[in-house]
């Protein structure tokens, strides 16, 4: 995993999270009378095996890989097809039961927490790769298909789906959270790569956002419903199919590493490499604290200084040109120790520091947990925000090695924190808020990849402003007037 490992039970803001779940648990117990009535209806649709009340199963479906506390749903359903999803949603709608879609539970913002209890729709049994059109570079998959499973399926075709958020996440889940990853600088995020969605709305109706079965590479037809659902984090509907844009597997890959005397030099190099038109596939930034952590963890001997990890995709000929251009640029920015490799084994070794970043950070303070921040700013502001953030970390005695998708202006501070130390947790909480506001002040966003989920709803209001937030609320009301779809996420509850 690139970024996050499971973090059961830990919470950044223990008081906030604990109370929230407890209060909502009371609501769902109150509802349990309703629940008994609908269980037989659920069973008649998705079978005895498709309905689970087991405590362990519910707990598994009430948490993801974030620091947010587990909020288990009242029941977990395992529908097998979109018809079942629709029928089950109709029942939930009739009885006003919250609906929480669940893919692989690999989210980082508490998206699957059933804060008001309700019904979790685990979509893992819908696991077919449906129509693959090799010549058109598109494929349609069900929610149980993960990105690694899809790429394994495609291995004989010369095609792949490059969006790589680290986890082996459900592709429909990735669409729901508008996932991104290390490859985004060249291949884009989910927003650019979802052509069509099949979505079940709260009332059970089924919509194809670009029309049923349609997959043109571009369209100007009507409102962009597809991208409305991308990033909606399960609050507007349940995604049951996604049609994805595929790419050719690169003919060859070259990885490179280069050290820099300063953050500015590293970012300047990045900007210039992009300006030079080098179609760099991955360009990752690790700060000196992270490099030190990686050296210790993997017994490496990299210079403890801001470092760029690069990856280039292309034909043999174009690779040479790309690497030479990049090397020249890094040298002109006082970069040193530029190393590159083509064969898989050496490439693995060169990038080892980047791959181990998460574990290396945790190893800095054994027994601690980690939380990844996620701000994203325009490239020109990146040096300033990194410098200010590092100063903030030092001033507040926090451990936060930095890894960044520097080509996108997106970086993560891996906050390593003692979950048993409320004072430190509080300091981290304040730091994270300051960081988000720093990014917002620099024309950026509080979440480049991970989504809003539970923890960033207030920040979303600051980021968007009241008019936009009101518009979002109106859309939500239009799609889901009873607020059954994944309540408590993205938008703050209305003041009554």
């Amino acid at each position, binding site marked *: 995993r690139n970024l996050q490992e499971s973090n059961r039970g830990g919470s950044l803001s223990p008081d906030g999270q604990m109370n929230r779940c407890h209060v909502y648990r009371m609501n769902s117990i109150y509802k349990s009378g309703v629940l008994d009535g609908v269980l037989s209806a659920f069973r008649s649709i998705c079978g005895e095996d498709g309905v689970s009340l087991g405590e362990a199963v519910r707990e598994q479906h009430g948490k993801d890989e974030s620091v947010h506390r587990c909020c288990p749903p009242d029941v977990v359903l395992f529908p097998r097809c979109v018809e079942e999803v629709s029928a089950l949603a109709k029942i939930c709608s009739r009885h006003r039961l919250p609906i929480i879609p669940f893919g692989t539970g690999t989210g980082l913002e508490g998206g699957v927490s059933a804060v008001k209890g309700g019904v979790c729709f685990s979509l893992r049994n819908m696991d077919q790769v449906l129509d693959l059109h090799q010549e058109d570079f598109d494929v349609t998959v069900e929610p149980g298909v993960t990105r690694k499973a899809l790429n394994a399926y495609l291995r004989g075709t010369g095609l792949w789906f490059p969006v790589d958020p680290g986890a082996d996440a459900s592709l429909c889940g990735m669409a729901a959270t508008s996932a991104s990853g290390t490859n985004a600088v060249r291949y884009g995020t989910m927003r650019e790569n979802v052509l069509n969605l099949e979505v079940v709305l709260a009332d059970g109706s089924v919509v194809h956002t670009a029309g049923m079965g349609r997959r043109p590479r571009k369209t100007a037809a009507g409102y962009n419903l597809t991208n409305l659902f991308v990033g909606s984090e399960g609050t507007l509907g349940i995604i049951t199919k996604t049609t994805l844009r595929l790419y*050719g597997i690169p003919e060859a890959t070259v990885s490179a590493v280069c050290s820099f005397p300063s953050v500015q030099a590293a970012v300047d190099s990045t900007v210039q490499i992009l300006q030079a038109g080098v179609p760099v596939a991955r360009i990752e930034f690790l700060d000196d604290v992270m490099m030190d952590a990686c050296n210790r963890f993997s017994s490496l001997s990299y210079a403890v200084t801001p470092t760029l990890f690069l990856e280039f995709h292309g034909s043999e000929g174009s690779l040479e040109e790309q690497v030479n251009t990049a090397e020249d640029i890094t040298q002109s920015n006082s970069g040193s120790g530029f190393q590159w490799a083509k064969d*898989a084994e050496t490439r693995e070794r060169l990038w080892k520091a980047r791959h181990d970043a998460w574990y290396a950070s945790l190893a800095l303070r054994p027994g601690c947990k980690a939380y990844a921040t996620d701000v994203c700013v325009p490239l020109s502001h990146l040096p300033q925000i990194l410098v200010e953030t590092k100063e903030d970390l030092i001033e507040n005695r926090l451990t936060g090695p930095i890894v960044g998708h520097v080509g996108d202006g997106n970086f993560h501070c891996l906050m390593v924190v003692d979950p048993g130390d409320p004072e430190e947790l509080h300091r981290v909480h304040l730091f994270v808020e300051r960081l988000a506001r720093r990014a917002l002040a620099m024309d950026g966003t509080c979440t480049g990849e991970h989504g809003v989920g539970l923890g960033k709803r207030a920040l979303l209001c600051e980021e968007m402003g009241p008019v936009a937030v009101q518009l979002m609320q109106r859309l939500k009301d239009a799609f889901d007037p009873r607020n059954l779809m994944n309540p408590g996420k993205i938008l703050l509850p209305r003041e009554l």
Partner: protein
Amino acid sequence: MSGRVLVGVKRVIDYAVKIRVKPDNSGVVTDGVKHSMNPFCEIAVEEAVKMKEKKLIKEVVAVSCGPQQAQETIRTALAMGADRGIHVEVTGKDYDMLGPLQVSKIMAALAKKEDAQLIILGKQAIDGDCNQTGQMTAALLDWPQGTFASEVSLEGDTVKVVREIDGGLETIKINTPAVLTADLRLNTPRYATLPNIMKAKKKKIAKVKPADLGLDMTSRLEVLRVDEPPQRLAGVKVETVDDLVAKLKETGRL
């Protein structure tokens, strides 16, 4: 030495597919089911292509036995870097009952015909799990064999093979010509790229019949019945450790 390597590639049901037994228990459902190259055959092809890239050998020939669809599997090998293919056409009942004995006879005949320096096969196929073809081929040719290979190095007229065995790793040196079978850790097979898939369409696949090689495909085996593994039963929850111990004793486990 000819510098020619023969690689056997088998078309099997894709490893990610959930296998279903036919209602009449005569076999598994194959119609409409995704098929691909046997994973161990992919590793074998990768090893041969690597040898050619290092200029240790001159030509990689991919061989598959079966009906027309076997050519798809050969095309995948060609896209990975094999130079040409040989499709040995086996259809109908002969194909249903095609097993290691017949395939090893085919490989042996082709090895002689093509003057092969090495035969590389996957250690076993994920459908039959026989793990016999490599060994039988070597025996028929009276060639040395390096099976369960996790590391292979060509050194002139000999091959050093590190084999995965129960106790650990065994290193042997055998003379060529020889038969090698690939184990999981030998390498990580490359994914075919689109340009290579396009190039592969132009590479030649020769078609032969077993009769052309003077071989009889009649099987000495008959499949009587195929059953699914028994369904896993639900567990039983007990309240205390004493109950647990009692239950274990009851069922003869303690």
